[in-house]
């Protein structure tokens, strides 16, 4: 998969006021700054830096991260749902990449 591709997963249905788990996996190398073992040249880091979680376009959480997160990061965050809507994640990396994923949830 290409860098920045992501899967966002939420339950299809939930009860009003239920606390759900928002799970995501993003394809990204998350490589730290390092020296190339053969040429000795400095290789700059390439990591995701920021991920925002929104529900119906209202900000819920912001995750700041660095190279300490494993490659192809997996994350799970709690979200309390009071109404049906769209869960969105927007994330960016240190090389200017910006992506978004959405998932719908029905709340009864």
């Amino acid at each position: 998969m290409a860098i920045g591709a992501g899967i966002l997963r939420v339950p299809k249905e939930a009860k009003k006021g239920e606390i759900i788990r928002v799970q995501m996996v993003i394809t990204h190398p998350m490589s730290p700054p390092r020296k190339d073992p053969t040429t000795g040249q400095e290789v700059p880091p390439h990591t995701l830096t920021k991920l925002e979680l929104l529900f119906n376009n209202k900000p819920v959480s912001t995750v700041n991260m660095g190279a300490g997160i494993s490659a192809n990061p997996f994350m799970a965050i709690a979200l309390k749902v009071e109404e049906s809507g769209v869960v969105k994640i927007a994330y960016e990396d240190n090389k200017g990449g910006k992506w978004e994923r959405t998932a719908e949830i029905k709340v009864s």
Partner: protein
Amino acid sequence: MDRRKFMALSALAVVGFTLAPILQPAFGSTPRLEDELQRRLGVRLAQIKEVADIKLTAPTIAESGANVPITVESTIPIDRVEHLWVFVDKNPVPWIADVKLTPMNGQVYFSTRIKMGETSNVRAILKLKDGSYVMATKEVKVTAGGCG
């Protein structure tokens, strides 16, 4: 220098040398972590209280340091919590991630997979609304490092 003075000084020196390695760990065992805490949180490790109502789940022994699953949960009501940090004491960069939490989260819950260079403590630190910091610590033994 007379003999008595010399004896006293050398005795002091011996005491100094033997004590130095013992005193060292107490102050300098995790200088990188202290620096990072000072920069990102503005507090020292000693100012953060260890509490039982944060649950930090991580393996006791990790097969690979490249992929260590951790989960932070807390029974502290979300209204009282502002921010969450994850640190690994002995990583080249101890700061792993931080999460801004809002009441819309409903609960303190954050799960991810982290890299660890060597056997070290993992810390989950919460900033509460009243400005105080609390944390949970767990040691994870790493058999193969995961940095680089």
